[in-house]
């Protein structure tokens, strides 16, 4: 098994864990962190799979950089919304009973 494939498989694992986290976890902060794990998984697949015989491909690296910028913006928006929701309702989750803090 090549290193690239190993990275890609680890990436898929992270992606699945993260996606499950976003769906299953109740606390919004955890959901946001899980989304970041998920995104990192996708980035790892992007960089890992594109390696050919150990030679680094610059194109997916540029893509991942763009992706990181997008993920940072999305995380900032999500954190802002989570704070706004907490300020208005005192809740930390989307469902009625979610009070984990």
């Amino acid at each position, binding site marked *: 098994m090549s290193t690239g494939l190993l990275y*890609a498989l680890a*990436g*898929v694992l992270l*992606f699945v864990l*993260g*996606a499950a986290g*976003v*769906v299953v976890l109740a606390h*919004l902060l955890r*959901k946001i962190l899980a*989304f970041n794990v*998920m*995104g990192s*998984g*996708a*980035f790892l*697949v*992007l960089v*890992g*799979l*594109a390696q050919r015989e150990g030679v680094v*491909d610059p*194109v*997916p690296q540029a*893509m991942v950089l*763009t*992706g990181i910028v*997008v993920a940072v*913006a*999305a995380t900032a*928006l*999500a954190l802002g*919304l*989570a704070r*706004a*929701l907490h300020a*208005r*309702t005192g809740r930390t989750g*989307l469902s009625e009973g979610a009070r984990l803090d």
Partner: protein
Amino acid sequence: MTEAWLDPAAWLILLPLSWASLTFLAGPGRGGRLAIAALAVQCALALGLALEVAATGARVHAVGGWGAPLGIDLLADGLSAVMLLLTQAVALPIAVYAQAYFTDAHHRQEATWFWPLAGFLIAAMNALFLSADLFNLYVTLELLGLAAVGLVALGGGAAQIAAAMRYLLVSLVASGAYLLGVALIYGSYGTVAIATLGPLIGQGPPLAIWLAAGLMAAGLAAKSALFPFHFWLPPAHGGAPAPVSALLSALVVKASFYLVLRLWLGPFAPLAQTAAALAGALGAAAILWGSWQALRTRHIKRLVAWSTVAQLGYLFLVFPLLAADGAALQAGVMQAVAHGLAKAAMFAAAGVLMLATGRDTLEGLAGVAGRVPLTLFAFGLAGVTIMGLPPSGGFLAKWLLIDAALVSGQWGWVVVIIAGGLLAAGYVFRVLRQAFLVVPGDTGFQPVPRRLEWMAFVLATASVLLGLRGVELMALLNGPGDGQPIS
């Protein structure tokens, strides 16, 4: 061919980006006039681009003179041109509507960042329709999602923030799935250009590509609120301020549908047939479930939002019919355009009704017909399109769909299409019947700016008259561009 710096394709992205930034700098709630003027120019640009595509076929613009693979190409073909026209044609009246809506004292608070967010939303959408590679499409999809979430949260109430949060999470997981699909495709082929991928996948796709196609389709279906991923749409679209709901329901959900269609016809065509029946079945379920919920809800904007869930179902009925009949593509695009105009009109009208009655429930509408007759007329006209009665664009779309289903002998879809039309009549008449009730005494209705009523009327009329001008639109789809990207 025009000079590169005059290219309408580039300006359709640059112009909204500029006015979005300028209205942000101008400060909270300001910049409406600038946005309206710029949108008028964008309408002209989209029309110019459509005429050019109709005359000479699909065209490519290399941004900054750096073409693919080093730079980014903007591709405009018939399908892009139609979607761009729809976007500008809906955005302009909604902007005029929004300016009047947000000067109202009750809504000034919500107006704070409407104009910059709307500008970024429109820029992202135009960029999406012009993108020619999968990664660029991912970036535009994310920009669109972030701007849309910001707009949903504009109202600032707890329910709206919660709806925005739910929408954001769905949107992020969906685009994450799309990105993983892109990663698998790049890993397999070393390119993300749509035009190059088609022939590569046609040679027999490996397992990774099947997985990628599944991930991308699921992600885009969630973004288009296809049943059973529709749960986020009614609270998000039903709770936002009326101009925002109109933009989201008319345009934003169509963007991800456009992408599904683009991939289905293009690179994933060799894989598509396996999923056709599933897409159709989910579309049919959306039509029936969405209409049923629209018949049950007590809130007027929820009703319109559930109607969006139902009408989006029609778009996905296209897929099982595509293989048998090319007219199914025209039906799908016609449905997207007709629904876009009609749904913008319906949300605009619903906003007027809520302003006039001061309430958001159907019961509150009793007797409102005497006060805002033009709005009720607009709601009814938009309803004609949603129900699919002639001569509306909705009729043309549903007629083409039924025709394609009959030609290919798939009778089941015909039943769903007709049942959906009847259910739509049911929920449209729920609103009209309540509004025409005679209520004795003073009802305490508020006066409404005339401009709001007229904009709803303009959009509704356009959705009906579209049926008469449908031929031109379809010629654009089938013209020299042929809906297929050239390389």
